[in-house]
């Protein structure tokens, strides 16, 4: 489609403002367009129609929890009484908001089995950064600045090593065994006085629950390290297993995966962090507290050992409000239903896809809320790659599962149906996948050429990087 810049009507020029030296002013016209309101509305409405989205398509994108985010949470979070609030407003004029945030802080602390939480991180990755930073601060406070290494399981999400590096750590990977559990011997070999801690998700990025988690915790703790829980997969165990009980010392929650904030084409999110009592003093500020006058923002003045501020203000407030509304709506029982049906849908879908001929990466394991398939067999017999299969799925109005992640399974698909999809939708997905499998055998060209029915055909990503036309 034409760019918005093509919609440009001339408007009269403006006199330069008085009192500002010319040398500080912009010269010439501001090179933004001047469309009419209808032109803008049409342009972006039409653009929106070119997207896949949960509201229009099944979106079994592993590791992303693309579920239905109740619209009521949105409606309530954007109420004027919240949305027009400047962060510098005195606490007494924002008690309603602060009460919500405080309750959320309490609820998330309870839900994770931790001692305290801070709402400030803007997304999962920032939560991870906060987490490893707290672990760093903890060790330093103990006078131990030799712990410069963080462990992560092989195939962990990219943010894990990136966050550890950003907090100044080196990273070592621990392999897993054939059933997806961690190789404990490798862990033992890796542990040592230079290890600050380990970052894990559970269920892991393989979709399987790390059954030895208590033992892992014991060994890491014994070696003086701490455990960080990457909460991206929390939907799988919501209301059933608390990371604190598993032995984790710090964690983040991706509210935009588990708690009713939509992904919005890539954010905004919220990566609330929760920690054990030992790490509590280091939580990022501001935090929501209570004093004699009601609820308030607590700053570094209240928490001198805090790792500090990660963003300008107290976090993704509008996202936090959605999470608050969602938890309030569901209650403890409703949250347990989320994980139950997330697991049911995943395990049912896995069984049906296996029946359709697809190979599970971990066939002997129960799926968590998601599971990994390997299309290595297809590739070998037909030359069709995982990417071809998922591009073909788009033609049937189904979004692609995550491909080539986790990286340790060749030609993999990571499939996460979520609890809000109906059996009928899953069955349709299976039927389409079966059809694509037949196509792969009989007419692989169809797959190589896919997608066929979208606004554009397969895009040349290499050319994009070569030409690097990134502004118009």
């Amino acid at each position: 489609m034409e760019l918005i810049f093509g919609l440009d009507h001339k408007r009269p020029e403006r006199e330069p403002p008085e009192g500002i030296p010319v040398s500080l002013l912009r010269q010439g016209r501001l090179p933004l367009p001047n469309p009419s309101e209808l032109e803008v509305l049409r342009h972006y409405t039409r653009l929106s129609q070119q997207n896949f989205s949960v509201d229009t398509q099944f979106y079994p994108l592993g590791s992303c929890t693309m579920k239905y985010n109740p619209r009521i949470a949105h409606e309530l979070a954007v109420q004027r009484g919240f949305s027009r609030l400047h962060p510098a407003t005195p606490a007494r004029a924002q008690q309603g908001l602060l009460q919500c945030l405080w309750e959320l802080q309490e609820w998330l602390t309870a839900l994770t089995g931790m001692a305290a939480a801070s709402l400030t991180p803007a997304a999962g990755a920032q939560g991870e950064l906060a987490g490893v930073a707290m672990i760093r601060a903890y060790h330093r406070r103990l006078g131990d600045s030799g712990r410069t290494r963080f462990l992560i399981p092989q195939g962990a999400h990219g943010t894990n090593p990136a966050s550890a590096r950003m907090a100044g750590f080196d990273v070592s990977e621990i392999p897993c065994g054939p059933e997806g559990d961690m190789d404990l011997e490798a862990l033992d070999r890796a542990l040592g006085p230079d290890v600050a801690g380990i970052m894990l998700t559970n269920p892991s990025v393989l979709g399987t629950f790390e059954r030895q988690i208590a033992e892992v915790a014991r060994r890491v703790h014994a070696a003086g390290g701490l455990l960080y829980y990457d909460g991206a997969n929390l939907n799988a165990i919501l209301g059933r297993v608390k990371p604190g009980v598993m032995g984790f010392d710090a964690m983040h929650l991706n509210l935009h995966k588990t708690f009713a904030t939509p992904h919005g084409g890539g954010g905004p999110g919220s990566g609330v962090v929760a920690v054990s009592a030992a790490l509590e003093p280091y939580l990022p500020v501001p935090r929501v507290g209570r004093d004699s006058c009601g609820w308030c923002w607590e700053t570094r003045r209240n928490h001198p050992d805090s790792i500090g501020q990660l963003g300008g203000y107290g976090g993704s407030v509008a996202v936090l409000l959605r999470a608050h509304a969602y938890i309030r709506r569901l209650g403890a029982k409703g949250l347990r239903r989320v994980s139950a049906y997330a697991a049911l849908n995943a395990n049912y879908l896995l069984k049906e896809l296996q029946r359709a001929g697809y190979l599970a990466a971990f066939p002997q394991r129960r799926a968590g809320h998601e599971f990994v398939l390997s299309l290595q067999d297809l590739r070998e017999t037909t030359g069709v790659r995982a990417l071809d299969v998922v591009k073909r799925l788009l033609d049937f109005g189904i979004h692609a599962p995550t491909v080539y992640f986790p990286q340790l399974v060749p030609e993999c698909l990571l499939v996460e149906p979520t609890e809000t999809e109906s059996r009928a939708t899953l069955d349709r997905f299976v039927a389409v996948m079966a059809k694509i499998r037949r196509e792969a055998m009989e007419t692989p060209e169809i797959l190589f050429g896919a997608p066929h029915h979208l606004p554009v055909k397969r895009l040349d990503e290499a050319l994009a990087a070569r030409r690097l036309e990134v502004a118009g």
Partner: protein
Amino acid sequence: MPYIPHDPDETAVMLATVGLDSLDALFDEIPAALQCDVLEIPDGISERALRREMEHRAAQQPDLRCFAGGGVYAHHIPALVWEIAGRGEFYSAYTPYQPEASQGTLQTLYEFQSCITRLTGMDISNASLHDGPTALAEACLMALRLRQDRNRAILVPATLWPHWRAVLETILGLQDIQLVLLPMDPGTGRLILPEQGLDEREPAAMIIPQIGIFGVLEDVDTLSLWAEQQGLLRIAVCSPYALAMLKPPVEWGERGVDIAVGEAQPLGVPLSGGGPYLGFLACRRDHVRQLPGRLVAKTVDREGREGYCLTLQAREQHIRRGKATSNICTSQGLLVTAATIHMGALGADGLQQAAWESHRLAVRLQSLLLDIPGVQGTCPGPIFQEFAVRFPLPARYLQDRLLEAGILAGIPLQDWGMGEDGDMLVACTELLDDQDLEEYAAAIRQILQEGRLAWN
């Protein structure tokens, strides 16, 4: 009504397929000792009860005329901005990793990048970072990667917002990067450059805010030129409405800056008590491989039709992992969409109209306040939409008192641990009108009057 569709029959059939007889059995691989309930969370409530409760909570925040700024501002948001950004197809899409199914989001991000390059004059903009302060932190890390020949240090001006500096301290502190403070002249609210140039520590870059903490416009050319002479990379900090009126960073000094960052919240993103907001980061073309965050590029499909996709993903954590240019993954997609629509909806003319009006109101309010006996200016320099003023009573007290008049009076500088007791940072936007200014001034006059009476 329900969010989970399954009825008992469907559940039973599906469980049978899996070979289990209860939902709880789905968790049979998880050691029993690890499983528990969450008793601390109250029972769920209906959507209607929830609405009632949350409407009550929202109503507890009074409707205030907003004179607070400090980097985030209450500008007018046209009705169509969230009307469109809130459409399901934008609202409930994922990061556009599958470009063929995401042209809507991708083109919008591309247009955002284009708007930011047009506002700043820079070559390349990413598609958002978490907020202004983190964008600045990322810019510093980027500068250090670009200048590995230099010390791991950054020149940080004392005129930078304190909360921005706090974020630099947290993030850069983790890598033991040094923040070298450039002092401010409290009389002018502007930076003082060291007479002799830099000492031996040789930082990699210098941060140059277009507008200082007291609202005073910096002499960006002089600062940039000096930094050029010192061989420093220049990181500009700008605000989008100000850029509609002021010189774009590409023109600062002799050679323009290397990186420009800022908080894009004023572009259609509600204040929402502190977030989510969105940072922007723009740079020169030759620095692009060190750029953090997502980047969208134009390309063609196999039939030669134009389309858009994410590009240079090898910079990002999901490919480069520990060696990525940043750990950022989820950024501020929907807010980018809103900001892009906002710029379209206002257009160049609307953006400038709002900038001009905000400026006019700020200048007028400044003079109304300075006319009040006992009220003093802090710095004399030219301003854009914000200025600091010194009241003869504590700014926090006045802020509190003005709430009763339905006015959020500004930011007491002491909240940031700066200035004197009576110092307040006051901002205007086009949402205010002349009557609001007069009511502000009248309320101050009245309170000061009372104060004088009480003291006499």
